[in-house]
């Protein structure tokens, strides 16, 4: 029998258990903390590849090196640039060409790793296309004139013997959502979209009764037209030279943990999407569907050098300023 007095006593036990359990993790964690720095903030873009970063933070992979690891999104390019130049952002996720640009402008940064090997897809209302040649006569929506996807797309077209304006028309939009809306509304048949916008377009199509197909995997087209493997080293981790010099063991641990976190993210898209929803404010169902198409496979900067240089060369050929006019030197790659 559990009378009211016993009931309250047991309830007190339940609460006490809660408090003990609450204290336990911090108590257990204390010895390991003494060794490292007090706090490290890792920065990332508000996009899919940051899910691997969020996992890394959540998994406690750096607990032996840092007392408290925080994760912060950079919300605008000025934040990213100012953060890197001021030395505040010592580890940050970034488009790979931005890291090259900053390095070539004399900022002490390195390409620690490549996280995603391409997020670009040609989405269509009219089913799959076999290759770039099939785009002859089409109008394609392209977000951001002269930005990386535009340059990459035009470079691949050129290799296929096609030219924008002559063989197909590029209709530029202010943002990817604008391109999505126009395609759903039937104002254009095709659009180049990065993940998770590509998956978002398909989901929006389902919701609106419009069939949107992943018509062409631009990574595969890259391999076919540019050469090398079907991978575009699109985004990765930029590490400051100062942190490299002062805490090489931390950087090494981070790079190692990133590889594991990248694998976990690719292996567990539903679980990763939940983390993405919490850390990035993205909708979990779309993130879950986008992860398998996000080509997340973390490789060190050094081992990615050949792919990166091929990528940088293509961009340089189209618009040298985008990477700062030249290929980064060997010490750029960690």
């Amino acid at each position, binding site marked *: 029998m559990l009378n009211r007095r016993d009931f309250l006593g047991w309830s007190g036990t339940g609460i006490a258990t809660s408090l003990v359990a609450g204290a336990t993790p911090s108590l257990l964690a204390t010895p390991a903390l003494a060794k490292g720095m007090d706090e490290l903030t890792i920065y990332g873009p508000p996009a899919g590849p940051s899910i691997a970063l969020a996992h890394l933070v959540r998994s406690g992979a750096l607990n032996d090196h840092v007392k408290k690891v925080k994760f912060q999104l950079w919300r605008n390019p000025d934040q990213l640039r100012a953060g890197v130049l001021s030395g505040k952002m010592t580890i940050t996720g970034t488009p790979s060409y931005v890291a090259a640009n900053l390095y070539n402008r004399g900022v002490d940064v390195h390409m620690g790793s490549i996280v995603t090997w391409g997020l670009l897809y040609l989405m269509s209302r009219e089913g799959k296309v076999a290759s770039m040649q099939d785009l002859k006569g089409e109008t394609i929506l392209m977000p951001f004139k002269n930005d990386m996807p535009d340059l990459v797309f035009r470079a691949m077209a050129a290799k296929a013997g096609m030219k924008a304006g002559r063989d197909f028309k590029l209709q530029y939009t202010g943002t990817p959502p604008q391109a999505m809306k126009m395609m759903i509304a039937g104002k254009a048949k095709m659009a180049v979209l990065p993940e998770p916008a590509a998956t978002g377009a398909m989901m929006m199509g389902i919701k609106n009764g419009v069939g949107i197909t992943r018509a062409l995997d631009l990574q595969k087209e890259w391999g076919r037209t540019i050469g090398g493997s079907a991978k575009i080293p699109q985004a990765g981790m930029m590490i400051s030279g100062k942190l490299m010099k002062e805490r090489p063991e931390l950087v090494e641990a981070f790079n190692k943990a990133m590889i594991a976190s990248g694998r976990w993210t690719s292996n567990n898209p539903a679980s990763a999407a*939940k983390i993405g929803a919490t850390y990035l404010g993205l909708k979990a169902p779309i993130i879950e569907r986008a992860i398998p198409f996000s080509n997340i496979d973390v490789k060190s900067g050094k081992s990615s050098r050949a792919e990166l240089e091929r990528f940088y060369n293509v961009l340089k050929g189209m618009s040298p300023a985008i990477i700062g006019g030249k290929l980064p030197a060997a010490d750029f790659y960690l």
Partner: protein
Amino acid sequence: MSPTMNVKKHQYMLMIGISIFGLMGNSQDLLAGDFIDTASMKRHAVGEPPAVPSPLQLLLAKPAMQFRHDDQLPITNGVEEDVAKANRMVKVMGGYNGDGNVKTAASQARLMAPGIVVLAGLRYDQADDYDDANGDEVTFGYKRDTEQLVIQWMPNPGGKVKLVGVRDVIKDDLQPHHAMDVANTTRYVGKLSFEQALDGETLKGFSLHAASKNVEREPDNYSNRNDGNPKNNMRALTKRHIVEGGAKLKLNLNGWQTIAALNGGWDNHDARRYNESAGGLINAIKLPDITRTTMGLALDSKRKFDNGVMVQAGLRYDYLHANPEAVHQTGQMKTPPGAPAKQVAMAKAFNLSPAALYGQYYGASGDFERNDHNISARLRLSKTAMDKRFSVFGDVSRKMRSPDNIEAYHAVTNPNPAGRWIGNPNLDPEAHHKAELGFVWTGAHYQGYGDLGMNADGPFSADNMKISLSGYVDAVDNFITFDRAHGQSGIRQRDNALIYRNVDALFAGVNFEARWNLTNNWSMAAKAAYLWGNNESDDRALYQIAPLEANFLIDYKDMLGSVGTWNIGAKLRLVADQNRVDDNIRTGLGMDKGEGKGFATLDAYGGLQIGNRWSLSAGVNNLLNADYQEHITGTHIAAATKTKINAPGRTFFFRSQLNF
């Protein structure tokens, strides 16, 4: 182009994840529950078949178990949920739960095409006798199969047509606390709805819905038990068909988000009891072919003000017409010429028509039709503060409920008056006057149980918690109480037959819940509820009031290398004594079988999942093998007696999910 511009554009492109989802979300909530939910009000201590799991819970729902109620704060599904809810076309589940020896298998398939989503699922549960804490076998069991089909069609942006079909069949649902087992419960539900979001300045959307529900229940006292008296084989058959529909408009009236709704329904309910030992002759017109037509009109409006105040007010009118067609039909029991007087009297008692019984017990006469015009209203005020983390609310309402068919027209007769159960056509609708006050604290880093926001402070930060506390008082005029005939006002007999009457009643309750993510790995939750109920007219405790109960959860989850995740947890459930009971058949109803004895149970559980493709969950229920009985028990059937049944002792469970 400058590097700054390059970065800016690319960063913007990466951010599309956020804006896309804004475009996706245009739910109108038009098919959500009503602000004044009179349609879902049920009689106190109702007994009915277990609920059908929703499509989202088909693979995760625990099997029905009416002698162990641990659903106040259910154990977490843990990492298993990431497999059961993963974006996969086909999912299968299999498992065993010792609470009722239930073996379960289920599968679900989903197809998506532009504008169309199809979800089909089926589930089978088979339960059997189980052992209580003393090792004694408890009679228990059922076989249940459920099939579901959901088709959703989006014909245009903002438009959604949804068709839902459900078949749920429960065979041989054993009721050891009752005189009959339910040999068959078959339910068919079909729902069709259409909702359309609009961008008008005033008209923001509308919805239409229609549903058809068919229920057939067939309890008997012989096909699943042997009482040693083959001359007493009884069977009942209940048939019910409900057709209902409605329309809603969503309006913006000068900043007031307003919903205007119209609902209507047609409901035919008929039940007979048969003496199978006498060749299947009718011996009670349980429910005399009742047809109810209903109509509801509702208007509610809410507005959020800049200072964090939200006002929501609503008014509802419900009309009910009920017409019992077969009130003059009698039983068919016969006696041979020259039969003994006792036998003749018995047959006569079984052959009493509902009309005769209503007249005998309540002095009711005429056609027994009823027409109710119920006016309900509700006002809710809330105020948020501290960056919307803290919210305090007050809610006052008057909600009216007309008697259901059992309360108004049930007509089970018996030569022994204590075995009669007679509805009361003279009942007035009950009117609840409820006032509730409460608050909710949602810390900035609390994203859900087990989901700690980024960069949270230490485990004891209030921002890691969600806490809610509310208290209410519900004064009920004309509360429809189940009772025994003791010659009360309006009751013409003093023979202990089961009757319904109007009394004044008072309910008061307190609910507390706290959820706390200590770290990314550790989470805890506590929930407590207390309810007090009193029959004010007779100054006695109300029957079947749940005792004070508190539940505690502690959960830990972690990554499984780069392949998956795992979790473990424990649950402590504390239930206090219930000393306020209605257990005397001579002075009250006597539905409670003595006072409720408090108990404590401890459960332990864990799970792992790999690649969001496969999971295995397992655990031990009632780890300490506590010997206990639920105070509120045997909820699958409407019954006047609540014989307490021992809950399961220490048992184990496991469940595995797989998707393709």
